[in-house]
């Protein structure tokens, strides 16, 4: 979907491994919009060839409906009870992902936070220190660039980058596609690093086993009540950069109190990726998921 005006398809999402040239796995759709006009013009230029013999089905069925002798002078109102969750499609695919992970005994962690809280650094250090014990696989979500995937690749874990283009969150379909590129081994840990955003990703189930929200002490200690939806839907809250506590006004006890007010099931781990203090608690947590 075009994240700007809602028309078009997933044309801006790009899924790519480090070292791959950008045109290997993407279909380029050039896409023109006429926002001022009543009619939208859509020019999709598809690089791949279309060999689908059923591509005109829609047209046929429309013709059928007009050749059955009915005149449409009397419109029949037909009330349909739907009672369908608007996110059903995402939720169904998320459950498929979850089933795949469970069958292969993969622990899938959805890592969420605002930009700059240290998600990627946390992962880098975890891969370097725990990589011998646990097989890590990583899906990196960002609007643009391969930067994070390159960092994870250097740290030594197989990684796929999902660039969402205009999108503000990952969804279960992107994860489903990325997983197919990763070839994840049984009994491993898959970390899905979501787009840095404390609002939108909270609504989209990816099929994860646990959701981990990261905040850092350079942010406000009222983050949990400013963005409660994310904290309410998470299982673990990591408070990062504790080595900076002496230099900032962040009240860690207050932050923890706020977080527990929003979600009394939330587990909390304080750590510093930089100094390594508290990292053992995070490793213990991963091992017992």
């Amino acid at each position: 979907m075009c994240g700007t005006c809602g028309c078009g398809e997933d044309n801006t999402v790009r899924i790519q491994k480090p070292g791959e040239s950008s045109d290997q796995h993407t279909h380029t759709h050039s896409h023109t919009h006429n926002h001022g006009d009543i009619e939208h013009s859509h020019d999709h230029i598809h690089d791949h060839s279309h060999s689908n013999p059923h591509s005109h089905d829609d047209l046929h069925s429309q013709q059928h409906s007009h050749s059955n002798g009915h005149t449409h002078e009397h419109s029949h109102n037909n009330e349909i009870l739907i009672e369908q969750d608007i996110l059903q499609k995402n939720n169904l695919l998320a459950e498929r992902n979850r089933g795949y992970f469970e069958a292969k005994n993969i622990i899938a962690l959805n890592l969420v936070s605002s930009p700059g809280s240290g998600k990627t650094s946390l992962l880098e250090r975890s891969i370097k220190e725990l990589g011998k014990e646990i097989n890590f696989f990583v899906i990196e979500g960002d609007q643009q660039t391969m930067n994070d995937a390159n960092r994870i690749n250097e740290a030594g874990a197989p990684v796929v980058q999902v660039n969402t283009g205009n999108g503000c969150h990952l969804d279960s379909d992107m994860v489903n596609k990325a997983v197919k590129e990763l070839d994840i081994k049984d009994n491993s840990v898959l970390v899905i690093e979501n787009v840095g955003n404390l609002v939108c990703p909270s609504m989209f189930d990816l099929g994860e086993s646990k959701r981990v929200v990261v905040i850092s002490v350079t942010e406000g200690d009222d983050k949990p009540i400013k963005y409660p939806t994310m904290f309410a839907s998470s299982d673990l809250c990591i408070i990062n950069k504790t080595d900076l506590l002496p230099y900032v006004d962040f009240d860690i006890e207050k932050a923890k109190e706020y977080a527990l007010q929003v979600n009394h099931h939330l587990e909390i781990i304080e750590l510093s990726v930089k100094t390594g203090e508290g990292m053992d608690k995070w490793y213990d947590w991963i091992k017992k998921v």
Partner: protein
Amino acid sequence: MHELSIAMNIVEIAEEESKKAGATKVSEIELEIGTMSGIVIEALDFALDEAKKNSVLSNAKITINNIHAKARCIDCNHEFDIEELFTPCPKCNSFRNDIIQGKELKVKRLIAQ
């Protein structure tokens, strides 16, 4: 911004359901959106205006029922309205509560023509 994805999903559901019913247009659609669903109604309205263009919903009357959130206190079992996810129980002041209503995000019904 995620409201646009939600609006697109609503249009998709309406397209599928009206196709199943052999209809080409939807005259009315009713949605249920809870106050704790993570949706800003104004943003959804705005997104729907764009998303419904050239779809079965283009001329539909869209009704959004905003469902007010309720919670049940785990400690004293009291049920109460909540404005925020961190509203304490008015009876015993506990923050330990479960949301029992207000996370709705669904298409309730539509009238196809």
